[in-house]
């Protein structure tokens, strides 16, 4: 009963906040009233040296005693943190090795830490089915802890099983809503769910809560704070609030200099604001740190828009090279590559094959969207239509989804629906993508 009343109170609070937001947002798009402004950003001390020492210490331990499964579990956790901070896939491989070594020493029934590490590694490697199954096993082994439900919910979310995911998040709340870190994690998950369900203001509130709690910790974890700020930026960008987005991205970089996600976000905002040169600079910096294919593709688009065709071609060819490596590197960049090919009308058949392979397993709305878009470019209109309907089933407010829906409707000959979707896309976030937005505008004029 107590739990139910807490949930009710939370819902009521959210509802009131939502009302307040709606009332305030009836004004200009650039005004950004918030119930409580996020705390001012300042740079946080880097834990890099301590982390480095911890990792070396644990590595020495496992070298001396290969059966120290606890050290392996800790090591896997440290490596995963490194992945979050740097995006370096090397650490993902190391984390996988550590998790497997831990479970080789002691089976999951007695080694829930090892199973947790394995599930997290699988999640980070985009092996969501395995992550979900292991998380399920974990919930049975540790029925009174909240973190199994966190991993389970995340995996289910990525697989497109939204109801079960929400149930898992509720279970997480029920079991562990007391500790600070768990509360932060809960807020982040609720924010993501809200964003999916056409509730961007709710998402913003949750992210702001998470941020506030993270900053209030005795020693705020740098990457978590930066990530929350970045997410706030993303949420703002999605609804076309570019100034707010820029502010949040800058704050993220103040917290964590050269945070690669924030760099790319800043580049996107710059491009949306029309500052091509500034955007190129940001993206070049981001690509310099880690050549993620979506960054490289965006840089290529910007070069194209600036008239630097040779540089654009170089970047596109780089994306293709990453694609060639993709078979060896696993499925990390599968979706981005499929979208890249479809956006630029390159290799439509390959893109379609890739997207459909992924969609067979991972049936979330963005998977459906990728499938629909590549199907359209490959000429399979009916499949595209079915898929885009799936993609829109949660009423998510995402310009790209609307744009794809509009183009598919256009190709199916449904002119009115097409115009409707394209208008929605452009009104929500006029510059959602440097190249694609102009294509959308052109299509609308026809």
């Amino acid at each position: 009963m107590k739990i139910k009343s807490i949930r009710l109170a939370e819902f009521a609070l959210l509802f009131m906040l939502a009302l307040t937001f709606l009332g305030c947002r009836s004004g200009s798009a650039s005004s950004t009233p918030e119930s409580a402004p996020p705390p001012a950003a300042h740079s946080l001390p880097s834990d890099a040296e301590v982390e480095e020492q911890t990792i070396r210490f644990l590595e020495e331990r496992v070298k001396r005693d290969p059966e120290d499964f606890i050290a392996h579990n800790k090591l896997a956790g440290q490596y995963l943190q490194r992945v979050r901070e740097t995006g370096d896939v090397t650490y993902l491989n190391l984390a996988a090795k550590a998790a497997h070594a831990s479970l080789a020493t002691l089976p999951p029934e007695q080694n829930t830490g090892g199973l947790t590490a394995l599930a997290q590694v699988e999640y980070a490697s985009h092996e969501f089915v395995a992550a979900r199954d292991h998380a399920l096993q974990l919930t049975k082994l540790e029925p009174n802890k909240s973190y199994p439900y966190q991993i389970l919910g995340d995996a289910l979310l990525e697989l497109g099983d939204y109801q079960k995911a929400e149930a898992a998040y509720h279970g997480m709340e029920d079991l562990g809503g007391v500790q600070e870190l768990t509360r932060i994690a809960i807020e982040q998950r609720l924010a993501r769910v809200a964003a999916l369900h056409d509730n961007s203001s709710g998402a913003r509130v949750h992210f702001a809560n998470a941020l506030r709690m993270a900053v209030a910790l005795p020693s705020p974890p740098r990457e978590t704070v930066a990530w929350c700020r970045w997410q706030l930026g993303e949420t703002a960008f999605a609804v076309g609030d570019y100034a707010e987005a820029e502010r949040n991205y800058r704050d993220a970089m103040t917290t964590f200099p050269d945070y690669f996600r924030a760099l790319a976000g800043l580049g996107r905002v710059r491009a949306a604001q029309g500052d091509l040169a500034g955007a190129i600079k940001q993206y070049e910096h981001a690509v310099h740190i880690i050549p993620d294919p979506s960054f490289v593709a965006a840089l290529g688009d910007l070069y194209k828009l600036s008239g630097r065709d040779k540089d654009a071609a170089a970047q596109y060819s780089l994306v293709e090279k990453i694609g060639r490596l993709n078979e060896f590197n696993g499925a990390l960049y599968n979706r981005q590559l499929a979208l890249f090919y479809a956006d630029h009308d390159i290799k439509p058949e390959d893109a379609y094959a890739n997207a459909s392979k992924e969609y067979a397993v991972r049936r979330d709305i963005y998977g459906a969207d990728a499938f629909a878009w590549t199907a359209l470019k490959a000429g399979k209109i009916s499949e595209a239509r079915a898929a885009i309907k799936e993609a829109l089933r949660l009423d998510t407010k995402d310009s790209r989804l609307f744009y794809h829906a509009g183009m598919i409707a256009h190709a199916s000959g449904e002119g009115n629906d097409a115009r409707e979707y394209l208008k929605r896309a452009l009104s929500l976030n006029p510059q959602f993508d440097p190249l694609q937005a102009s294509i959308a505008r052109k299509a609308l004029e026809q």
Partner: protein
Amino acid sequence: MTPIERRLFSMSVAARITLTAIMLVLFWSSVTIAHPLGNFTLNHFSRIEVGSDQIRLRYVIDMAEIPTFQELQTLTTYDNDAPPSKAKLDAFAARAAAEYASGMSLSVDGVRIPIQVLTANASLLAGAGGLQTMRIQCDLVSAIPAGNVAAVHRLLFADNNYGDRIGWRELVVSPLPGLSVFDSSAFGSSITDELKTYPGDMLQAPLDERRAELSFTKGAIPSGANALLTRDGHAVSVRSRDRLAELIAVPDLTAGVALLGLLMAVLLGALHALSPGHGKTVVGAYLVGSRGTARHAAFLGLTVTLTHTAGVFALGVATLLASQYVVPERLFPVLSLLSGAIVVVIGVSLLIRRMRAPVGWHKRRVHLHDEHLHHDHSHTQDHDPTKMHSHGGRKHSHLPPGADGSPVTWRSLLALGISGGILPCPSALVVLLAAISLHRVGYGLLLVVAFSAGLAAVLTAVGLAFVCARRLLKSTGRFGRVATVLPVFSALMITCAGAAICYQALEQTGTGLFTAGAAIAARVISASAAPQFASIGGLGLLGLGLVFGLKHATEVDHIVAVSAIVSEHRRLARAAIVGALWGAGHTASLVVVGTIVLALKIAIPERLASWLEFIVALMIISLGVMAFKRALSRRSDFHIHRHGHDYFSHSHLHFHEAEARQSAAIEGHSHEIVGIGIKPTIVGAVHGLAGSAALTLLVLTQISSPILGLLYLAVFGAGSILGMLLMSSLVGLPFVLGARKLSGVHYRLQMLAGLLSAAFGVWYAYETGITGSLIRTIAAL
């Protein structure tokens, strides 16, 4: 073709096909291995070579597939997939090196010094997905300011290139010869061998070493400073200058310079020979032990020269032709081992030969003291046993063979010479290889010959010195007793020297004998501590029993008891027999008790077992005391033996065995031992009773069939007999040696052994009596 041949041929065909298939698979899979650290990484390696007036830097950048592709796009147009030309690559490398140099900072004693690029080289290697990886290698140099005359310098290095890119960053410090580095934040060894191999199977997050701080000075490190360590934790030692290698690299080669160089080489060879190694000990020991002459010494020297030169040539040619497979550093330990093995073999064979014919030990030689045979010489003067004489039979001398004027065998001399020269000096090898690369082959060969000649000269001199010393000693007349000891002692020295060489060679290869032995011993101990009989088959069980029996023999109380008995014997064979008899008694009692236990399916009560242990302790005490008393009483047993007739005295250096029976009969006597007695058997039997409790209980509970259990006990017993035989031989060795040569030592050893045994027995009695519940039992009665 016979059926067998046909089968072999067909098998080999199948094997060949399989082999080809495997090779194809391996080749194919090797082609598609991605950059081991991930395709986005950019990896750095810096080696700081600290010299006295300049710092050299070896800087390597290893780019994975994607960064390589990004860089290559600046070199060629993107759609021209042809690889860039060599000229373009070189130009790129030069540009990159200049950029890298400006991105590094190097300062000595707080003053920043500029870095110049010496060479730069870029190469493309195949990577994953049809892409390439790039390796940029540059050598940079930086001069230490001349005005800086401080003894100790502090160096700071920072690598700021590509600061925000992910990748491996490794920093290594290596001091040049003559300098030492200490208090360093960086390590002295590389994990990746200049980014050529990355650690694959172990968990190792990419290194992130961007800065280094170190102190360096000429000569040795100051006390209290922390030496430079390798990544395994070993200290990096100061390298000495290789002056021989510097000889070959003189700028101009005129006649005068060449002659001077040869002279220097001879001197260097002589100096090198004076340093440890090259068998000076062995040569000296051999020549002093056998009746070597100056000619022998010279021959030895010649052999060493030739072998050494030949060795250097062979190794040099091998290194040149097969540089991929033959790494000289790997061969040196093997050659060392070989040389040590030869020396050990020589030493052991000498030892055996010289021990077999000790003074006064005539095997079954009953000699008659007929009057007429002894009229030939006068007996009033002191009789030198080393001279040739006869007791009525063959002429003999009481010296070991080979030492009685017969020539030292040239074969053993040759073997010694080979063993001394077989290990080529690394500097000589370097000289040869450098000579070939500098196109000064003739000069290089001459240098090597001169070096070997210098080496041999010193060796010959050492040998001559020993020969002269021996002659000197002999002429003073005090040589008599020493002469008999020296050969055996020298053979022992040779064996020990050979063993030391072998041990060092093994250590160089990385196999620490002690650690390996300790590891094996630990495994055996842990296996024997928790035997799981149920899981192994019958044959395995018996094998296990043999091993356990062997191990059982090494228990302390057994050895102590046996040593107390062995200490009385002077022959190795006797000592071994003592051990064997002990083992027999032990096995007998074990089998008897085991039969009873297994047949009646009863277990020996613990109380009884403790009592038996206590009795064993008392037995050990008594054995020790007896040995001590005997040693005390027999101290003066070294005597001039009167053969029961009074009109001549005839001295032999020998002792009587404990139970020797001497007959005063005129017809003859023998110095032979009659028997050892059944003392060891009884001791062993008592030990068997004491230990049988635990063992039979174990067997009873774990082995189901009684026949198998009995068989196990028998095999265990056989193992213990064998083990005890070996152990007692080992234990008896010092007594045997001491007995033979030096009179007083043997008795002192025996007294010591007796004392120790008694002491051990007391402690053992205390352990089993007091701390066990025996006293309580007695009190309770």
